[in-house]
């Protein structure tokens, strides 16, 4: 199914701007919404996540640009990025202009903390959902190798981008039995030639 620009913009504005604590939780909300509406499948979501991690700047905006472009090309990408960024930017502008410190009020501090906890759980759920298709396809040795490599590099203090680049190279060099796709290329990611 292909959504209209308005449907896409509304969904992205809603899901991106209802979490605190970063874009990873928003990506998980978007995955759920996209899959429920059959706009994007799990593996295409994984592709968007990979691309967004390797794009400079704010990951969630790169994710939205990719999703918008996939669903409605340039207009979709522009609408998705605008929908994801304008509401939060307006709130930030309003707070900066009025010099209101939200975290001054205990009730708001509690609400923010609860929101952060929920965001943390969403992030963990996102990690699980990203690797689930590979584990289900019997590719757990690939998952274990790459995850252990990434974990080890994280523990020695490497930056995420360097970890992703090294993991990408390592993944492409793994023996074919471990690295070869156990599942066909996901729907929508097949080769397109002009």
């Amino acid at each position, binding site marked *: 199914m292909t959504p209209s620009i308005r449907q896409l913009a509304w969904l992205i504005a809603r899901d991106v*701007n*209802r979490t*605190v*604590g*970063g*874009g*990873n939780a928003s990506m998980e909300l978007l995955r759920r919404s996209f899959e429920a509406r059959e706009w994007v499948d799990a593996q295409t979501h994984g592709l*968007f996540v*990979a*691309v967004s991690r390797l*794009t*400079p*700047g*704010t*990951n969630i*905006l*790169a*994710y939205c*640009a990719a999703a918008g*472009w996939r669903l409605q090309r340039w207009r979709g*990408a522009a609408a998705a*990025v*605008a929908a994801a*960024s304008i*509401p*939060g930017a307006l*709130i*930030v*502008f309003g*707070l900066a*202009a009025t010099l209101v410190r*939200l975290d001054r009020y*205990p009730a708001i501090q509690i609400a*923010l*903390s609860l929101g952060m*906890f929920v*965001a*943390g759980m969403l992030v*963990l759920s*996102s*990690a699980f959902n*990203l*690797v689930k298709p*590979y584990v289900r396809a019997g590719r757990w040795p*690939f*998952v274990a190798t*790459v995850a252990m490599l990434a*974990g080890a590099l*994280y523990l020695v203090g490497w*930056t*995420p981008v360097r970890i*992703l680049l090294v*993991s*990408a190279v*390592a*993944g*492409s060099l793994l023996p074919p039995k471990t*690295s070869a796709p156990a599942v066909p*290329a996901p729907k929508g990611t097949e*080769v397109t030639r002009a």
Partner: protein
Amino acid sequence: MSVALVYLLLLKATVTSFAGMGSLPQIRQDFVDTYHLVSADALSEAVLVGRATPGPMGAYVVAVGYLAIGWPGAVAGWLALITPAFAALPLLATVQRWLHVPRVRALVDAVIVAGAALLIPSGILLAVDAVRQLLRLR
């Protein structure tokens, strides 16, 4: 200080970072240390506003732009926030074109799995921070 220069300074910070708050060191260097456009305290306020607001954490650059030169700076901040996102499009197009090659597929799969692994400490840290804050508020 012109709007264009504020935009370029903020863009330099956003385009050389790979996460919402990753631009902070560059912004501190340019806006606080080099050009003295905002004070260190004002920058901290901007970061706090960004953290406490729903949506992308990187949106704090809107507050930095505003605190530097007023509302045109806020617009420049928003533009600097969204500009790098469009770099995802050629990257996505390139990846999709080569995805049928097993090695490229494995490369993308490795980025997905490594990205998922990196999410685990982020998720745990967020949840632990939240619990600590709640305990402090008791």
